[in-house]
């Protein structure tokens, strides 16, 4: 296990070109996630709703026998929700948390590109009180004069679960 991770880090992450990021579109902005965390990308399909959960948890799907929760990223970032269209996709990600890794899916407007961004090129995000807390942003990258918001998915998705948990308790 540790060997495989080590291999990932050495061969892919630390090369001169930097990390690869899969980017996707959400309300006109381009966001990036570490490509090594992406399990697969699939089209939007109906989900099974889970009762008494926050509205950004769309429900669960069957991913080859595993029950995977789906988070609507627009709803998570309190952006205006739009009806799902033909470009709407679910990006299935591996999220690391204190007690092992989980598989979760995020609903985004469309997938975009795969970019190489070196670690040095990632700039710290300024805190402007925007909808997305800077806690969830690993950094800002620039590709062809375009800004890419690189997300810290571990923090983002774990805190989604935690928040849901807290919501339920306060109920």
């Amino acid at each position: 296990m540790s060997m495989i991770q080590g291999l990932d880090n050495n061969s892919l992450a630390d090369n001169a070109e930097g990390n690869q990021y899969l980017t996707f579109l959400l309300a006109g902005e381009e966001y990036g996630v570490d490509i090594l965390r992406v399990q697969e990308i699939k089209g939007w399909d109906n989900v099974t709703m889970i009762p008494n959960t926050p509205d950004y948890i769309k429900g669960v799907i069957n991913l080859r026998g595993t029950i995977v929760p789906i988070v609507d990223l627009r709803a998570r970032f309190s952006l205006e929700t739009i009806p799902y269209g033909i470009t709407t996709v679910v990006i299935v990600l591996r999220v690391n948390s204190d007690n092992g890794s989980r598989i979760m899916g995020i609903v985004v407007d469309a997938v975009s590109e795969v970019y190489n961004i070196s670690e040095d090129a990632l700039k710290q995000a300024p805190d402007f009180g925007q909808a997305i807390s800077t806690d969830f942003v690993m950094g800002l990258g620039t590709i062809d004069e375009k800004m890419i918001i690189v997300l810290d998915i571990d923090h983002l998705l774990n805190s989604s679960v935690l928040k849901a948990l807290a919501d339920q308790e306060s109920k």
Partner: protein
Amino acid sequence: MSIDISQFLDTFYEESFEGLDTMETELLGLNVGEADAESINTIFRAAHSIKGGSGTFGLMNVADFTHVLETLLDEMRDGRRDVTQPAVDLMLASVDVLREMLTALRNSEEVDSVRVSEVHDQLDALLKGEAASAEDDIVEGAVGDEEENAAVNSTAGWNIGFKPLSHLFKTGNDPVRIIKELSELGSLKASVDLSAMPEFDLLDPEECCLAWQIELGGDATEEQVRDVFAWVDEDCELVIEAIVSGAAEELEEVVDIEPEVIPTPDAVAEESVVNTEPTTASAPVSVAAEKAEVKPSSVPTKKPASPAAKKGSAAELGSIRVGIDKVDALINMVGELVITQSMLNQLGEDFTMDRVQKLQEGLSELERHTRELQENVMQIRMLPISFSFNRFPRLVHDLSSKLNKKIELKMSGENTELDKTVMEKIGDPLVHLVRNSLDHGIESPENRLAKGKPEIGILHLNAYHQGGNIVIEINDDGAGLNTDRIREKAIEKGLIGENESLSDEKIHELIFAPGFSTANVVSDVSGRGVGMDVVKRNIRDLGGVVEVKSKKDVGSTFTIRLPLTLAILDGQLVRLGDETYIIPLVSIIESLQIKAESVSTIAGGAELYRLREEYLPIIRLHEIFEITPVNRELVNGLLVVVEGDGQQAGIFVDDLLGQQQVVIKSLETNYKKVEGLSGATILGDGTVALILDVAGLVNLSRERVKALKKQAAVA
């Protein structure tokens, strides 16, 4: 090359705990005075492995401790020490200490060094005391143990034939190191036998093809020589012959233990070929070709398969040892499944309507294979309940001496199998019930004699399958439950009214109420009154029930009924709005159409349904789950009467769909626990359906009604 040995640490712990269990079982089975040499050997071997392993991993305190224990066992093994009760008790205590030490180390906690050194000192004292007296016994005054042994054997040395089996290197052993160690015992002459060496191009550097003939001079004992080979004795052919110097003719011993697993895969390969052949013959040609490809590849892999499989299972957290026969059955089944699949594939390629018959046959075969495969996979998780029962001899042994009672433990049905998870969770409740029976159930010998019963009380543990359940019975021939005292106590605690008349059975059930204990004195063993309700709750969490039957002065029987597995359940599919939910069939009492006149509403919004003179609260699932139903009018839907948490309720749903077996998937793996749901499953069309947790729902709806009342009060 550096090896990260920490990855083997888990295996070491697991094997050590198994070793400790073995030691405990054997120690309890020892006959004081005339101990069985084989048992002592087994205990010794277990201790030796733990010592060796802990030394390797640098756990020196464990190694030191085990060393003393081992010395003691060694003396017993050689017959230089009698097996006495105090010694056995001390060894049992040592096993406990070792277990504590290893547990602490595994969890990286502090080892209780006071307790360790205490027992360590006791062991030392025992060793010293006996050693002194042993020396007195020997008139000639032999100086030390080793020399004494050597003197008896009086050999000039040893001829050792050492032929490692080819997989020796894979066990982590190195013949060179063994020979080096031998050389420390005396003068050494070794010659190597190259006859098994293959041609250079066929040589596999990972296999050992060498054998040695070793002549060891000096006065080492056979024991010492054997010790050198202790790690490899199952992985080599070892012949040790004494070079006789005098009159005594020495024994010749051939150790030829081949690992037993090796022959089985051959048998499997043959068997599966035989079994599948007829099917292959009827199947189209391409399948036969595929089959032919598979056959040769399976032959060379069979030998390494057994060590590899062993490693794989140990590396995972919480592993299961699976009988090779179960694995064989699975391989067989998968083979047949593959054949059926390729047959269907072939059929699908150029399908015409006249072959529809064949298609149907293929599909039903597929269904049969899938079902068998599923059953067999479930079998893998099944373990005999003896894993759980095995701890009781020790418990009874310890408690009976503590309580000054004479108790005989009988066990039957130990081979009854149940799911590993269920087994892990049933352990504590079982211990509790057994403790209770020993403490409160069985009377003291004097009391028993006075009642005209045999002095020795009998505790009987029994397990068997009944329907889809496993039934575990704990039966004692003790005093039985004291109905009057339970009644008194229940009235005192306000559980029942003073003038309430209850049947004996109802009274007996009261012992499962929270905070109930009738023991006059709270003893070390039981009687704090936190027990039985926890037992009942734990069993209920597993989807089981516990019952008690008791008769004064005849005894009591606790009967636990549990589902065989937590992985599959029989479910009733219900529809609510667009969603499909599953209600476990076990909790459903009946389903009915709602009659408007039977519904009544009490203030605060709670609705009740009158069913045969009982009032059931109606749970509107759509309100609790906040979804849109097809009907809001009760009369248009159906009511599923369920029982959960000891209470009946009616769940209002839109429609009943079918019943089917569903495989339970956890929501927690990737998400979290959701109240009112016990998990999810995947339906035939690939969509996810949620499984309702009836007890949780009853609670949810209770809270909801309370909250509504509060709101109403505020308004």
